[in-house]
């Protein structure tokens, strides 16, 4: 059976990756799972310099979900290359680097740096983080800015570009098309949804940042709809994500048009999830008599 899929010029041995921000820099989970069985490792968002992140509390559990406002804490490009790249470079599966900036130029510069590094699988443009004051979703909720960021990164690198879109738009189709037309090789749908949790006794928000991004099983139906809408609007592959915790969840994303999927929040409570999704996907397709996972993609009877 074939599980291999193509994201631009990047071949994945299977369509199951992990979502940025839920898997650190790979090395942390290498203690618990065999990373070389994944489709790809996607690392936490990196900008040019180090980022301290938001004050705690940074996450709160809600019904069937999690709200986070980490604030993209990270070591910056140089810190990442020094501390984490030697490990990631040794993996047999591709590393996808999630990048962000506060200006179009910064996105392009980070893209250039990783292009020059050599050995990177792809770049994922984070234009959709809801938890930072500048950068992030300001680029993902304005078609013109989105096109500028993608085009600038396109000029900066020949690496496959994946644009990670915000769910916080009335209609995702124009954003999907803007990214495609500006040279994005693929889309990642979706980032977290802006959300709020409060403590009634103290009348305070549960997060120091007040608001955060909602993820986990409760967002899956929203994410499925967005993937479905985007898949009808573009020809480039889509990586679907949002609440995946089983092979069935992943197969639902594929059937509405995703070429690949990412396991996110589930990593936090069950590190084996991505590997279980791969095994379950194989089993399901076998039972359905489907030889190639690509036949399942976009096969929704609607």
């Amino acid at each position, binding site marked *: 059976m074939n599980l291999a899929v193509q994201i631009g010029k990047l071949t994945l041995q299977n369509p199951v990756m992990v979502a940025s921000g839920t898997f*650190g820099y790979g090395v*942390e989970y290498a*203690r*618990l799972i065999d990373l070389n069985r994944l489709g790809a490792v996607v690392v936490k968002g990196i900008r040019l310099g180090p980022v301290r992140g938001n004050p705690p509390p*940074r996450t709160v*559990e809600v019904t069937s*979900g999690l709200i986070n406002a980490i604030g993209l804490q990270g070591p910056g490009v140089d810190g990442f290359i020094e501390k984490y790249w030697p490990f990631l470079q040794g993996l047999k599966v591709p590393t996808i680097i999630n990048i962000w900036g506060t200006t179009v130029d910064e996105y392009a510069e980070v893209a250039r740096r990783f292009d020059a590094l050599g050995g990177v699988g792809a770049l994922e443009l984070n234009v959709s983080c809801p938890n930072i004051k500048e950068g992030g979703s300001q680029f993902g909720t304005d078609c013109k800015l989105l096109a500028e960021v993608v085009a600038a990164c396109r000029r900066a690198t020949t690496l496959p570009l994946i644009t990670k879109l915000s769910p916080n738009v009335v209609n995702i189709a124009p954003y999907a098309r803007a990214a495609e037309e500006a040279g994005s090789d693929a889309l990642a749908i979706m980032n977290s949804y802006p959300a709020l949790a409060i403590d009634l006794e103290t009348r305070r928000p549960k997060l120091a940042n007040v608001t955060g991004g909602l993820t986990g099983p409760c967002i899956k139906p929203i994410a499925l709809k967005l993937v479905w809408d985007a898949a009808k609007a573009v020809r480039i592959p889509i990586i679907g994500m949002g609440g995946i915790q089983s092979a069935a969840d992943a197969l639902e994303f594929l059937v509405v048009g995703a070429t690949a999927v990412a396991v996110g929040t589930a990593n*936090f409570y*069950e590190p084996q999830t991505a590997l279980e999704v791969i095994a379950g996907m194989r089993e399901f397709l076998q039972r359905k008599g489907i030889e190639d996972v690509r036949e399942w993609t976009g096969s929704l009877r609607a």
Partner: protein
Amino acid sequence: MLGGGVLERTVPILTHERDTGGYFRLAVRAPDITPLVQPGQFAHVRILPLKSALLRRPFSIFQVAGETFSILYKAVGQGTEVLSRMRPGEELNVIAPLGRGFTVPRAGDSRPLLVAGGYGMAALYLLAQRAPEKGIVFVGGRRRQDILCVDEFRALGWEVRITTEDGSLGEPGLVTQPLVEELRRESAGRKLFACGPTGMLRAVGRIAEERGMAAELSMDEHMCCGVGVCLTCVIPVKTSAGWEYQRTCMEGPVFDARQVVWETDP
């Protein structure tokens, strides 16, 4: 000290008993985890019957005996409520041992001083057991039901000094009062190890700082992944360049008191 390996295992509950008040003791059989455990490390537990919440819950590893390890916890929220109703024979999924624990004193070191608030005692037990020199453990709580494990520490040959805020057991007042008295007698060269609520840890840190003593504090922070990726459980820690957020689950839960930043500029 940083432990060796970490494992994820589905393990059976062997015993599960109510302690005082709302506290429980739970032991699981985990033969390949127990040899790895260092004092002050924790287990990240997925409470399998808990369907309404997603995340694991972290618990200090209390006792290790052969193929079993135990935790001591208080039923305080939906996770621990569901856990408290589980019975021997039922299973939990654990990732353990995790985190950087206490530095076990070496032979010839001065008599260690342990400071615990409530179930903070659990995190200190293995340290007391493995320390070559028996010392004093100061334990405090709001009321007598919050004073746990006293017999176990005494059985190890440790001196236990108890305080309760309502005076229902031991001396009335805060755990830091008898500690300060003891340090007035002698503080040079002695070291503090503490686990308990943040207010208590901060007070212990200040006491150590004022006397130029070393102190290791086990920080109790809200946790999510437990393995270093989500960056939920961070606290501000001093660096050469100022301070940065470090992970309680990886760089901690035990920190050198001198490294902890208690107040940061907004």
